[in-house]
């Protein structure tokens, strides 16, 4: 029964395990526990039942609006990013000259960090709005569309690469056979290409949905929630609850638990839904 590999456990697994316990497992369990307590410094935690969860909605006027703002933002960006990325992938898998250079250009923004991206777009958007006597913080709609544009600029290239890989995986005999059978470009697109790239769609939806929900750096740099917290997304709202309001640490942790449950539920639901579409195809 004794596997000779067992004695290598301390070398192969222990370092990762210790780091994982310290960075994730312990903080995660402690966070769950603290969401049911009132505390300032962790060691003074007092059990208060589910009152933090109630306070997150009743006493706190920013949580629900930030959730709604996040959902609107996520729906808008997920659709626009995936549609544009897919169209770009279709164009770049044809015999257009310079496809490599185009790929390089479209992917480039993805490597720039969220804070830097936020300030880049702040200058551009403020420069445009200045001509009309506004700035990005004059109206929450400006911040909303600013975030959507920024997110598109950042994520389109990434998703495009995944769609290109998906399209290139389609065996050319299939598209060739369709052409011989007289299928037009739209029939080919809807009957062959889209069903065949469903695995890529699953991945791209997963990545864009989770990244849109978790957005923080870009939000902090572009608007920091202004005006009056009306462009504040959930991640930033939780951060502000923790670090700029004394006495709300427990509420902040309860919000974080709710946030986690929402993200996990959406991610799992979406994976199940598109996976089933993959099997049909």
């Amino acid at each position, binding site marked *: 029964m004794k596997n000779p590999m067992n004695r290598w456990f301390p070398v*192969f697994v222990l370092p990762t395990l210790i780091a*994982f316990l*310290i960075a994730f497992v312990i903080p995660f369990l402690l966070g769950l526990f603290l969401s049911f307590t009132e505390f300032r410094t962790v060691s003074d935690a007092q059990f208060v039942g589910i009152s933090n969860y109630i306070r997150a909605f009743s006493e706190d006027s920013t949580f629900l609006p930030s959730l709604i703002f996040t959902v609107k933002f996520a729906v808008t960006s997920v659709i626009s990013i995936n549609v544009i990325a897919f169209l770009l992938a279709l164009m770049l898998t044809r015999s*257009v000259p310079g496809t490599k250079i*185009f790929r390089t250009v*479209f992917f480039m923004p993805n*490597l720039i960090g969220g804070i830097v991206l936020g300030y880049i777009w702040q200058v551009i958007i403020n420069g445009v709005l200045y001509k009309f006597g506004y700035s990005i913080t004059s109206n929450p709609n400006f911040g909303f569309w600013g975030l959507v544009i920024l997110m598109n600029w950042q994520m389109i290239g990434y998703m495009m690469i995944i769609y290109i890989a998906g399209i290139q995986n389609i065996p050319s005999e299939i598209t060739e056979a369709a052409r011989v059978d007289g299928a037009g470009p739209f029939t080919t697109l809807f009957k062959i290409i889209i069903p065949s790239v469903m695995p890529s769609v699953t991945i791209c939806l997963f990545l864009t949905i989770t990244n849109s929900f978790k957005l*923080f750096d870009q939000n902090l740099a572009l608007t920091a929630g202004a005006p009056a917290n009306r462009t504040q997304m959930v991640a930033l709202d939780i951060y502000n609850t923790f670090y700029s309001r004394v006495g709300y640490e427990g509420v902040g942790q309860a919000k*974080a638990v709710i946030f*986690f449950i929402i993200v996990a539920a959406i991610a799992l639901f979406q994976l199940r839904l598109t996976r089933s579409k993959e099997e049909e195809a």
Partner: protein
Amino acid sequence: MKTKLADRFFLVILLLLSAVFIFPVFIVLINSFKLKFSISATPFVLPDKDTFTGLSNYIEGIANTGFWSAFMWSLFITVFSVAVIIIFTSMTAWYITRVKSRFNSVLYYTLVFSMIVPFQMVMFTMSKTANVLGLDNPAGIILIYLGFGAGLSVFMFSGFIKTVPLGVEEAAKIDGCNTFQIFWNVVFPILKPTAITVAILNTMWIWNDYLLPYLVIGNDYKTIPIAVQYLKGGYGSVDMGAMMAMLVLSIIPVIIFYLSSQKYIIKGVASGAVKG
């Protein structure tokens, strides 16, 4: 002939879009050479005799943010964290894929689970834990990154290891190699393409990460994203000239990294996604 025409039309669209994609970076670049007071109002105007300031924004920005030290800390933390992640998570992934036990499979699923948990869930408790354990310094944060990077990295290595036939490993065992030698001499070379993908994904994340280093070491050490954000937070009004210069300086290393390993990055992103 019809498709030729379509391709020409697509080429025009792609050219226009490329211009849209490059435009923001170009604007930041030209403004980094302009007087700070002529940036906010007229960012789309090229510098002229009156507004051109040479490198003074760069000199001021570097001095105000301590840019060089931020650059060195970013480099130190990214390089060592990525190296540590590759070394340890590849070993862990191989071990828990090859040795079937209840514990190993619980560990694997917990690691996968950690990938979907938003950072805010553990933000407060993790920075407290790091603080209590004395990990709130540039060396300690490497351990934190190993813990946070473990989910994706083990997941990707395991996905590849499952497709590697056992034959080579058994042959090495018969030749008298111990487990450690089998892994580093036989298995790891096979894992190299995955290791490059994992390294690239982690580099992109750690280099640009803001909140984690800000909470864990931000009081004493600034990385590049912290230094850029500090320019905003430190004063009531932002010095737009210095800000533009810092944005350019933050983008340059990323562009160099991208152009030098572009082939691997694009392949890595595509293959990383396929395994997900």
